[in-house]
């Protein structure tokens, strides 16, 4: 027999699925042009707050420590991804205090810089008339779609750590900064950096910067960008 859920219970159940998920930020309002991503904590929405005026309750994800290595750009929207990589439609993003679904310290993100989420909130007691709008933002794309979903992991063989720049030793980083030489000895670009985007990654839409030109992969999603040159 089907179990009847209140609107609040349904929304809370949906929010729980984002434990350990991700917030991916985009430079376009329609969810294109990836700027960067931040991993949600688990639980993602640990706090329930109550509005003093109308007693409405809100599920809140508070301040998340900023993470770096973003492609950079101006944030205009974001999607939540749950652990099964199901995603919401694009959500509005504002600066702290703007009252948006998602608030960040700054909408302007430098290449390689951090994104600092200060709050994500969701109304648990929306008026019935507004439920579809809330569901559009948080739940709409949770329904299973036909298809295949999987995850796979890569474990580096000895000597292949140069493929992950975050695994370089301090000495390797210093050498790279000094003469643009990777740990394997392959010189792939000059250390001078251009602040003009050279185009978009064909896979994730992130800006490709001059520093990445000719590199093996996009710094955001690792897709090959060698053909852009």
């Amino acid at each position, binding site marked *: 027999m089907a179990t009847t859920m209140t609107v609040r219970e349904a929304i809370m159940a949906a929010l729980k699925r984002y434990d350990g998920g*991700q917030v*991916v930020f985009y430079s376009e309002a329609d969810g294109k042009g990836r700027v960067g*991503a931040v991993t949600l904590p688990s639980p993602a929405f640990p706090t329930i707050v109550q509005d003093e005026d109308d007693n409405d309750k809100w599920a809140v994800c508070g301040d998340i420590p900023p993470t770096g290595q973003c492609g950079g750009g101006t944030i205009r929207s974001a999607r939540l*991804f749950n652990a099964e*990589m199901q*995603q919401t439609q694009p959500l509005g993003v504002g600066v702290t205090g703007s009252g948006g679904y998602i608030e960040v310290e700054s909408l302007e993100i430098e290449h390689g810089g951090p994104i600092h989420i200060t709050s994500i909130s969701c109304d648990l007691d929306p008026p019935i008339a507004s439920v579809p709008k809330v569901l559009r933002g948080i739940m709409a794309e949770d*329904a*299973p*779609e*036909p*298809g*295949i*979903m*999987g*995850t*796979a*992991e*890569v*474990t*580096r*063989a*000895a*000597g*292949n750590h140069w*493929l*992950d720049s975050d695994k370089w030793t301090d000495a390797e980083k210093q050498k790279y900064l000094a003469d643009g030489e990777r740990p394997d000895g392959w010189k792939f670009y000059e250390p001078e950096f251009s602040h003009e985007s050279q185009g978009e990654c064909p*896979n*994730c839409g992130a800006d490709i910067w001059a520093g990445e030109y000719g590199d*093996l*992969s996009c710094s*955001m*999603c*690792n*897709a*090959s960008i060698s053909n852009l040159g």
Partner: protein
Amino acid sequence: MATIVLETVVRNAACNAVVDLLDVGGAGYIQFETSGDAEVATNTFGATAFGAASVGVATANAISDDTSATGGTVAQASFYNNANAKQFEVNVTAVGGGGSMTLTSLVVGAGDTVSVSSLTVTMPAS
């Protein structure tokens, strides 16, 4: 707009029919490939690739690691049966990229180990 709702028994039957194609002739395999279809890594299913579907979802049985990958930049994964006939293909992205399959690094080095940690095939009700 016309709608159709599949009962669970139908969802399971459809799902099983798809995944059982991988068992034809013996153990099938997943081939991670570049955008140009070049093999990057190959992971082999067991003799029965997937367990029986439940509520329209079939979950893969254990899949062997590729402990010495060819290497390259992964863009897609193709699913073959033991007769080397491709049954379906999905896109692969880095984690957070929204692909059907996600890989912790799309750039795979020669000799790296590639492990498939989860894999499901879903047939929804509608």
